[in-house]
């Protein structure tokens, strides 16, 4: 089963590389990176032929939650179950959409009570490098306060501001800016 998944993934990676080679405009996310250990769902792949494989040791199917819980930290963060909370321009208030994201994150953090996270505050490129460190910090702290208000223990939540140093989307347009104004969640311990 595992080997098969690997094979499938290798195909996916090959496909990705091929796609990446012709489509130069793909954002850095599509860079040929080490394959995620489990299901690369975002990529359209040919369905696997349902070929029965003889398995010497039958592995009991794992429930999905445990499957998430068993992933390595790096893998978890590459395809994080925790959603970013986005902010309005030059603001750090939690919008209704951000509330929904943070509530979903709180549910996951309740499900995995050993997880610890760092909340990164990020800004778009339109402010100054220096002041954006303060703005990013306030965004991270606002997200943290909201999670605490939902019952998540404060000692599980660290914050760090990256200002405008690490944009998620390059580009100088509203689409990129909106993606870069965020509180981003990184799982640091599980």
């Amino acid at each position, binding site marked *: 089963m595992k080997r098969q998944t690997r094979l499938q993934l290798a195909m996916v990676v090959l496909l990705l590389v091929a796609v990446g080679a012709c489509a130069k405009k793909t954002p*850095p*996310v599509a*860079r040929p*990176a080490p394959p995620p250990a489990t299901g690369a769902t975002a990529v359209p792949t040919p369905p696997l032929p349902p070929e029965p494989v003889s398995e010497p040791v039958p592995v009991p199917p794992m429930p999905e939650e445990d499957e998430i819980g068993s992933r390595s*930290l*790096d893998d*978890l*963060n*590459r395809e994080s179950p925790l959603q970013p909370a986005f902010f309005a321009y030059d603001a750090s208030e939690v919008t209704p959409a951000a509330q929904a994201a943070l509530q979903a994150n709180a549910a996951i953090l309740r499900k995995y009570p050993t997880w610890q996270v*760092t909340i990164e505050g990020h800004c778009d490129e*339109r*402010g*100054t*490098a*220096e*002041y954006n*460190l*303060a*703005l990013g*910090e*306030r965004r991270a*702290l606002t997200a943290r306060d909201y999670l605490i208000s939902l019952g998540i223990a404060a000692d599980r939540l*660290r914050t*760090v*501001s*990256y200002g405008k*140093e*690490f944009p*998620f989307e390059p580009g100088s347009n509203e689409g990129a800016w909106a993606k870069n104004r965020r509180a981003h969640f*990184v799982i640091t311990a599980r």
Partner: protein
Amino acid sequence: MMFHRRLHLVLAPLAASAVLVVSAQQPPPAAPAPRQQSQIEISLTGDAGAPPRLAVPDFLAPSDDPEAQEMARTIAQVLWDDLQFEREFYMIPRDTYRTIPAAPSLGEAPFDRWRELGADGLVVGSVSKTGNTVRVEMRLLNVRGRQQIYAREYSGSAANPRLYAHTMADELHQSQRALRGVARTRLAFSSDRNRERVAGPIDNREVKEIYVADYDGANQRRITVNRSLNIMPSWSPDGRSLVYTSYRRGYPELLISNIFQGTLETPLGDRGQSMLGVFSPDGTRIAFASNRDGNSEIYVMNRDGSGLRRLTTHPGADITPTWSPTGTQIAFTSDRTGSPQVWIIGADGLNLRRLTYESYADRATWSPAPYNEIAFAARTGPGFDIKIYNLAEGQTRQITFGEGTNESPAWSPNGRHLAFTSTRAGRTQIFSIDRDGRNLRQLTREGNNFTPHWSQ
């Protein structure tokens, strides 16, 4: 204008002392200059109050050593650039006197040809090399009086010929114009030019490392090697250390790098997050921003981390401190009124006041004497421009005008120039500009470069 007029007043006594310097420092070889002070004064001022017109032909290299000949050319070109930078002399373009024959020796310039060109002064020199040691001579000649008015001699390593030119420029500015030049100062900044990636789960994060360069952008050299985010460097006044903000442990903390010893200090140890450190003018203290008490506030500590003291107390963000030239006040950015503005507070935490009323202002930098000005980046449209607030007059002027976005100004130690970042040439690069908005020079070209700071 004001500046020139003032300089004229100080010139007469200075000209007298220049002669003394020459005779004291170079007794045997130089033909002693006749002490006719009036003549020297004329040579220094040029025509009718105009700046003296100077020429710097290639230095002589009497030997056939190609390295010495290359040094002779480099030194003359760099010296011309250094003198041009302060705008105290009218520098005659070098290609207009390529045809004037080199003098056989330093004493015998073809003065008629130089007079014809309109030169008031002539800087000549020679380079001789023995093994790895070079000897460089420089003389300033008064073209009208056909006499030497200043001379220096240097010897040392052949490793960095530009340093000889920088030293000469600083000494010429000091002796002839009573000006503290900046030719031997350096810039520190942060750059992503290495294109290395930060280790971690998010692929597209590029490291930034701290670099230093000469004031003119030459000799760029990397200082940090920790492959994380290293930003906002600030020089110690002795030019031997840099304090900067590093994320090497996953959160921002102040590090002090002693660049000649290659040692590192962590003044705050594990005591919370800290950023944007700046050395006090005497080098004994560091002002910085930290969220250790809940949100970003301004703190001051001794260089070794002792004596920590909080200066601001407000739920708004207080960030980006800068010292006044005497170390008694600190300007910083606060958004306590809603938008980021520059404020001033005493280093004792008293006398808080607001300075700017812009839509958005950040990164104050306080000019040294004799000026009393604070430069900052102000939002002027989609991007930022550099503005300067004159504390005596209470007036603000603008020196960049919407070409790209212009941020992070830093004064030169003589208060006549600013380094800043601009996107006017495409990517984010470091430029220098004079306090009147003239003399723009691009100093970096590789990768993106940020948050310059000028050494003392």
